[in-house]
């Protein structure tokens, strides 16, 4: 059996109620666990973008993407391995300020991770770090001894390395199809 790879699936859809459910049941039916998920408006007006990561093999993910694209309301769907995209996630860390100030290498850590301080109060400090999961994870490890109260990570966002913008092309093509009909 093929070894499992982390695949990033991107989906461009109309902004309609119920699409997330339709997409997630396609994952569930194939017993694919969703590792991360982020949904937001895309750069194209009225078009939403889903970015979903999951461990799978190529054949399964290829079939999954075809099934997703079949749903009414889904414009286009693609799948990528990590080397085909630039991707980031964001992490926030809430640490008691008192504990943080005990850290002799605080400056070094912040520099090393290129982390930012978003807020600092008498009680707690909020740090922010963007990067790959292993980077945000590493900062978490370094801060662990300072009694981290909260640590949250976002889903992945990703852009492709490919020069072609297939979704824009598709939407333009469909616009022409519509005009021909009218």
């Amino acid at each position, binding site marked *: 059996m093929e070894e499992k790879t982390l695949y990033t699936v991107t989906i461009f859809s109309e902004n309609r109620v119920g699409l997330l459910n339709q997409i997630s049941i396609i994952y569930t039916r194939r017993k694919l666990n969703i590792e991360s998920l982020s949904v937001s408006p895309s750069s194209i007006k009225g078009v939403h973008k889903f970015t979903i990561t999951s461990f799978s093999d190529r054949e399964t993910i290829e079939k999954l993407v*075809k099934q997703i694209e079949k749903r*009414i*309301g889904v414009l286009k769907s693609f799948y990528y391995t990590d080397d085909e995209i630039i991707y980031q996630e964001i992490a926030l860390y809430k640490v008691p300020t008192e504990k943080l100030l005990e850290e002799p290498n605080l400056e070094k850590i912040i520099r090393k991770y290129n982390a930012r301080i978003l807020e600092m109060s008498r009680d707690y400090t909020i740090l922010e770090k963007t990067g790959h999961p292993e980077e945000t994870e590493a900062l978490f490890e370094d801060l662990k001894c300072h009694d981290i109260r909260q640590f949250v990570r976002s889903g992945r966002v990703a852009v492709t390395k490919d020069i072609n913008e297939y979704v824009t092309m598709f939407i333009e093509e469909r616009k022409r199809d519509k005009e021909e009909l009218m």
Partner: protein
Amino acid sequence: MSEKITGAEALLRSIEAEGTDTIFGYPGGAIIPVFDRLYDHGGKLNHILVRHEQGATHAAQGYARVSGKTGVVFVTSGPGATNVITGLSDAMMDSTPLVVITGQVSSESLGSDAFQETDVIGITQPVTKWSHQIRTADEIAWAVSRAFYIASTGRPGPVVLDFAKNAQNEQIEWNGYKKCEFIRSYIPYPEVNEDDVDAVAEIINAAERPLLVSGHGVMISEAEKELVELAEKADIPVATTLLGLSTIPSAHPLNKGMLGMHGNVAPNMATNRCDVLIAVGMRFDDRVTGDVKEFAKQARVIHIDIDEAEFNKNIKADATILGDAKAVMEKLLPKIKKTKHTEWLDSFVDDEQLELEKVIKKEVYPITGDLKMGEVVNKISEAAGETAVLVTDVGQNQMMSSRYFNYFIPKSIVTSGGLGTMGFGLPAAIGAKIGAPERPVCFFVGDGGIQMTVEELGVILQYGVAVKIIILNNNFLGMVRQWQDMFFNKRYSQTPMVNPDFVALAKAYGIQAEDVVTREELDGAIKRMMEYDGAYVLNVKVEEEGYVFPMVPAGSTMINTIIAPGEKYQPEN
């Protein structure tokens, strides 16, 4: 010109504008406003009151499959809606266009666990092509036009509109109805790629042992003529899937029969010997392929289908053409060279002879012993004539009737293929007769399946639907019994049945009926049934331990075909 009407009235005007004249349904609290308006649409909209909502969906499926039109269903919320799930799943698997309107509680009550509220969108999304909740009256025309467009175009399928009660009652300005012709995210008829056609034509023209497989897609796209033309031009033997039966007449010399678990030996074996397999409008169901790793592994596989997600799903294709079967055939035909494959076609004869001797003669022309299912089907098919529609239930009755019925014209079979729904048959037969009133409808069913939806006999009573019902009664859940016999040491767990007096039951519904027990009684009973102007039930006592053969065991390969109890297929040479 606009006028004020209610949402319920808007729904009826919308479906009328789509050309609907028949609705299968069942009223209830959350859909009463629609049924109230229906009262005034009697001349245009013919509503068939079923006896259970599942029956409404299957009847609509039967209606859609024979007429090519979209089947329309009205049911209420809650249990009315949950009762249509089996029909929706069946229609999804077998690509049948349905628009199912479910009543729903008022928008303000949604999510409050109101009386007869259920999450219809959540439940139906996995088993429909599209499902949408109508919460305001002004979206009705939009939603209905999309529903019909989505259900009936491309690869057809079921659509649900969940119609909140407040939207049924709301008043709106009616400005007429416009059919949907375009949805940005949905391309029902992809343009056929010429390069793909060229590549496929080249493979077919170079083939020495080509095999054409005709599926349901050929029937949906009405490409039967073109398919037969292709077969004749390049002299290619044709096999059909279960749902592809009647896409080529039974008697056509190039028709080699049905593929699959209970298909014909010759075409099944040919999948292991052909050098090119051309699949049109089919999806390589596991009941067709058996073990996918072994299926046609020596062949170059050409897959022609309208649904891109079917390519490489079960069987890897060497070449594909995406598109409607008819559009593809029209482009492909001029590029196909006229040729002969005499030797290849002759190679089918041994297996055909073997099946005739070992299976068909015993099943269709027995001389002694109890009545056989195959002989009953064959005689009824002969009596029913060339325009007859076969409707089946699921199980041995389905395999026997689909194998031994004779097909002359397209759209002559209605059966539950993908989902294999017992109880499908009776309501589907009713729908088929209503959809094709001029054609005789012969419905074969087992003693088990008839009891799953037997309540629909009430529809026959109420509307005088002239369906010929043949119960192949062996007092067993026959197909499961066959598996228990062959693979579970004859441990007949929960398959023997104590049955009611079916003739008395039919008569209680005012339906003519008679028992047939002996071979001598059969011809006369069939004659009386076919000549009778109206519905008729024949309760035929067939041998208890009948088997459907040949049989490719589940997940196995063609070469392991079982031909008779304890006897494996042995090639002639």
